[in-house]
């Protein structure tokens, strides 16, 4: 009979401790989530900047400049152009090559 209040007290204390631990864990997870969100945002920003940098590097003006200055390329003359036509799409890469060679 005398043990009953002590058990009750112990149970209450355990419950309070569990609640406290759960709160601590939730807070910790909340912080982790916040950090992850921040990281995602930062990565997304970096990604957007990189995508744009790529788009800048693919701009026709830059490509033409690079092709002419670094690779010494020149625009093809009309007589050096060969039109392979729609048959290329059907034939695929190997077919295109054979078409080109045949010409």
């Amino acid at each position, binding site marked *: 009979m005398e043990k009953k209040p002590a058990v009750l007290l112990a149970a209450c204390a355990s419950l309070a401790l569990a609640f406290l631990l759960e709160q601590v864990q939730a*807070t910790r997870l*909340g*912080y982790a989530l*916040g950090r992850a969100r921040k990281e995602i945002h930062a990565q*997304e*920003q*970096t990604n*957007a*900047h990189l995508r*744009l940098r790529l*788009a*800048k590097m*693919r*701009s*026709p*003006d*830059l490509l*033409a400049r690079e092709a002419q200055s670094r690779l010494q390329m020149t*625009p*093809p*003359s*009309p*007589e050096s*152009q060969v*039109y392979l*036509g729609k048959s290329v799409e059907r034939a695929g890469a190997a077919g295109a090559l054979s078409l080109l060679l045949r010409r």
Partner: protein
Amino acid sequence: MQTRSRITLLTLLGLLPLPAIGFRLLWLQVVRHAQLETRALGETSGHELIVVPRGRILDREGRVLAESLSVASSYLDLTGSADPASAVRKACRIVNQDPRPLLERLRPGRKFLWLKRKMSLEETARLKAAHLPFVGLVADEQRVYPNGELLTSVLGATDLDEKGLSGIELAYDKEISGRSYRVRLQRDGAGNVLMQEAPPDLSPPPDLHLSIDRSAQHFAETALREAVISRRAKQGILIVQDPRTGDLLALASYPSDPLKNPALQEVYEPGSTFKVVALAAAMEKGIFKPEDIINCEGGRWEVAHGVTIKDHEPEASITLQQVLERSSNIGTAKITLRLGASSFHRACRLLGFGYKTGVPLPGESSGLLPEISQFTPVRLANAGFGQGVAVTALQLTAAYSALARGELLEPRLVLAVGDGPRPGPARIRKVFSAKTLERLREMLEGVVVRGTGATAIVPGFRVAGKTGTAQKIDPAAGRYSPSDYISSFIGFVPANDPQLTLLVAIDSPRVGYYGSEVAGPVFSRVAREILAQRGIAPDQPLPLRIPSGPNASRLAPMRPAKNSAAPTQAREAAHRP
């Protein structure tokens, strides 16, 4: 008793601070409540600006023409700063910025200053790492055009707050505009975010899909820039349209200015490129046929007392076809007078002159087309060869596209907003009969094969087009300038199945001035590049350069023509000196 006294004493001692505590509580909770609550909230709660960047602008293939990035802007909060000038210098050093403009704006009592708007990621990281207490960061966005100057006059510009200022950016500002939200958040003592209010809508604004082809635009701008520079001209315009759909594939102007687009905002007298209107109307009405003979009076004709029309080459009696091929003003004036003001005016309206084309860019001009009653014989005769009327380059392109395909279409610049369905071409009306259009196409081919447009030949393709060398009005003198011209060429290719309409107009060239000399070669170059890029097969024999031997510099056909209604003179004419 002693014990009781002690207890009483202890109780009294214990109760002694209570009035003081009570008073203090009253002071804090009632008197200073508002002030302390604000301070507490300031430390644990705050606001954050969340920015949803402006929508992208893409070309017809989905390639990025304009995009907004989430960036940060920094400011200085100099509240309580003992030495604001030193704080400014310190912050400027971190973001590699000259502090002098900021120091000039620093006044006693001024606490807020923008340090740097729209910083790069590296600058933001450096500033964050410096942990300067007087520097704050706020979310912002930055509009970026990855292709540099390409399409500037169409895209337009945005202001510092990313609102559209001109061009497409202004016209579609409502649709693609970004948003920003101020959301509340709760922090702990260390400044970590505990809770954040959910913003209402974080979905990005829709993308804007243009009809422009980035590669075609590049070809157009490069050729135009080179022509304007080499001809020491004032400016130039180059438009490429798909006459089947009305899609504008390239809309170039040089020098390019994001605040104006001369292709649709500025008007000019079209000169000889306008002759097709009167000729088509005359053939449609049955007054003339291409083979009818017209007396061109040997190059000088007095249309009214004291008013003489001249041709640049004296012509005697020539056919209607030759009037167009040789660009005779006298021949065209006679045809226009015979046609009459009413029919001529109707033909102009039919081809869209005097109306805005409806392209969704701000500031479009409708051109200047006189009313029927204003056409005196002299004005009518002049209007026939493109004097006394003013058009925009876009109107003229749309009109030639209509002549190419038989139907006037609204020039289309925007294909879709977002991923929604792309509407078909906006048809306005049919123009002229198939017979008239066929005759006109043949005549325009003749201009390139035998006439003034030989420089516009595109190897492997049949080209139909017209040159124009229009004198400009000298506003100071109030008459036509003897030295300023608009040199132009407009045409469509392949002539038998038009897929591209191109207009080239060069304003006030100082090296050469004939349309054939200045604009024709630009037309040829750009048409050739775009035809190859779009995979349009040649339908005429291509010239072949013989690699060695005595005939090395001569050109010979590579293979026989496929669908040869082939004007074989074309190649010869193209390589005439």
